[in-house]
């Protein structure tokens, strides 16, 4: 299991003065490594299997070989993927759809959370409770009326330089984006985070003549790196994993996101090796995003002394 060996560490902060590790530290590190093994085995299996022929994947299942790159290894599954699925197109679609949703989601939800947590107005408690209540109904249970509903919605479209109104959002990009921008969980998360930022900062800014939007933009948001990063990651995931909704509302292959691609492999005789290869391909972008955004946590550790 080569991938579990100690990873390239983030540049140690103080290379000069490293203390001798105490037994406690060693114990904790051992716990971390044990947990890492516990959490990483499926992805190891997935990556390893993506290089094996089907019959061998199931032959190796009984033992430790399932997690080892042994036997006939080849890139055949990967070439098979490209023969079967327009993988690049699907990846670009999902990246675009997820990125727009994440960007809009961060803005719209934090704005609402700002008003709900830091401003005084009548009815905000009721609004907050009502917003949280929208979390309760699982999407699966109202997806069907939703299809009918979005099919009635108007949209503006540029048609040869002229703006025209079309009816029905089926088979578009916006139908995969706009319904998922506002999200009670993210409003709630921002709300909880904003409450930890001292309110005196707002009052001082008001005295300095700042507008409420100015306070939001210049004071609160800059202090909310960890919350923004968290929402970015959490908002990205369901968009990347979107399956039920796109299969109901998208008919053109050109508009499909990555998860629908999995279904391309589920044939009468599924090719499991190709499923593993495709799954590996679509997991990498999410991991890359996670690695990029989690820096927000690190840098805020370094700078957290600065705020309140």
């Amino acid at each position, binding site marked *: 299991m080569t991938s579990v060996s100690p990873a390239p560490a983030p540049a140690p902060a103080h290379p000069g003065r490293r203390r001798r590790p105490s037994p406690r530290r060693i114990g904790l590190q051992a716990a971390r490594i044990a947990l890492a093994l516990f959490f990483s085995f499926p992805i190891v299996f997935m990556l390893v299997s993506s290089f094996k022929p*089907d*019959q061998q*994947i*199931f*032959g190796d*299942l009984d033992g430790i070989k399932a997690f080892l790159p042994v036997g006939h290894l080849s890139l055949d599954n990967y070439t098979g993927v490209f*023969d*079967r*699925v327009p993988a690049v197109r699907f990846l*670009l*679609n999902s*990246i*675009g759809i997820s*990125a*727009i949703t*994440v*960007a809009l989601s*961060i803005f719209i939800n934090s704005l609402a959370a700002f008003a709900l947590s830091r401003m005084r107005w009548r009815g905000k408690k009721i609004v907050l409770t009502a917003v949280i209540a929208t979390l309760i109904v699982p999407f699966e249970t109202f997806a*069907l009326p939703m*299809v*009918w509903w979005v*099919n009635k919605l108007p*949209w503006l*479209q540029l048609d040869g330089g002229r703006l025209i109104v*079309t009816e*029905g959002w*089926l*088979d*578009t*990009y916006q139908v995969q984006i706009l319904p998922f921008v506002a999200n009670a969980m993210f409003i709630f998360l921002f709300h909880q985070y904003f409450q930890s930022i001292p309110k005196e900062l707002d009052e001082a800014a008001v005295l300095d003549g700042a507008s409420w939007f100015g306070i939001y933009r210049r004071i609160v*948001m*800059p202090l909310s*790196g960890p919350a*923004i*990063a968290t929402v*970015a990651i959490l908002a990205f995931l369901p968009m990347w994993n979107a*399956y*039920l909704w796109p*299969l*109901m*509302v998208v*008919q*053109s*292959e*050109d*508009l499909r996101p990555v998860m*629908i691609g999995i*279904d*391309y*492999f*589920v*044939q*009468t*005789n*599924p090719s*499991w090796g190709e499923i593993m290869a495709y799954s590996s391909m679509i997991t990498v972008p999410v991991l890359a995003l996670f690695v*990029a955004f989690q820096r*927000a946590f690190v840098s*805020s550790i370094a700078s957290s002394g600065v*705020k309140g």
Partner: protein
Amino acid sequence: MESRTRRLAVSSIAALAAAALVAGCGGSGSTGSSGADGNTLTLWTHNAGNAAEYGVVKQVVKDFNASQSKYKVKIQAFPQGSYNDSVVAAASAKKLPCLLDVDGPNVPNWAWGGYLAPLDLSKGQVAVKDQLPSTVATYKGKTYGFGFYDVALTMYSRKSVLKKYDIRIPTLDKPWTKDEFSDALAKLKASGKFKNTLDLGTGDPGEWWPYAYSPLLQSFGGDLIDRSAYKTAKGALNGENAVEWGKWFRSMVTKGYAPQKSSKSPADDFRNGKTAIQWDGSWSAQANTDKFGSDLAILPPVDFGDGPKIGGASWQWGMSSTCANKEGAQAYLNFSRQTKYFVDFAKATNTIAATDAAAQQVKGYETGGQFNIFLKEAQKFAVVRPVTPAYPYISTVFSKTAMDIMAGADVKGALDQAVSQIDNNLATNNYSTGS
């Protein structure tokens, strides 16, 4: 801190720009299709990701478009796994295409629900009467769909294995009886050589359960519904024969012959030598032959008393009732009914061509060919799933009941409950039934 936010903002904007670019490239998809735009007809198929069959669909469409200048057919392909959900969602928004394929047992439900329109297939080159009965979907005296091929259930084993344990190799004319089958399983189990003595393929939860296991029930003399009027499941699904089937089904687990839940790929387990006898379909024949050559034993289903039975009907083609250009759709369907396409579909999918004439042209399926047994099975043993709009409901109830029985539920009680649920569903819905 400021710079952190700025970094976030910059990356968000960059992402937005990239996304807008992508959106710009494909934005033209937003014009909704209502099945036909003048003489341009839309066709939906479940073949995305299945290059072989999709290739034939494309060929037929290409040939049709070239054969005349009036109509033009445009294909949209969906992956099989979620095809039904896509169609039902589109139907709820009144956005069905003109032409679509449909899984055979669903035809009555979709015809009753107003998705499908009756067809006039008299103008095709191939006559309807020449087709395997299971490949033509009729509902209330009208034809709503036809398929180019069918598949057959079958058992796979190895001749060398059967010979070694002194087990008779069954034939179409003399299939195994229930007792013979029990003896064979006992011998194979006693050898201790196999992880699974019998693999029924119970790991796949979908339509496979009614397709694969209701023929076993029928061979015991039971059925999913009383087919005399399609008004009740009483007797058929909870009579003595059905109970006997349930007990036998459960005994496969209790005797340690079959896993209660098979692996994700029973066919690979068979090819890896983990399984002695596997209950599977004709679609695995080619891969199994590649692996075992002439040692592969393709066995007809067991006769549990009422003769061997297999399920009938696979994917079929139909026309939507909301189609704006039914003449064009009919023209396409009739054009497609040429023997060469029956041959091409069967070749591409390793399946049984729907007509005898076509089957003779598919290697292996010709008289005397090693796969000819499938054609014979389809002719002799095939039973279509009940021709009623209630079928999707019956299918889920049967699957759940069979799973419960396999998990040790009281057989009679489980079947009685299934009957009361099905009868209740039949009573509260105004289904009209019959082929």
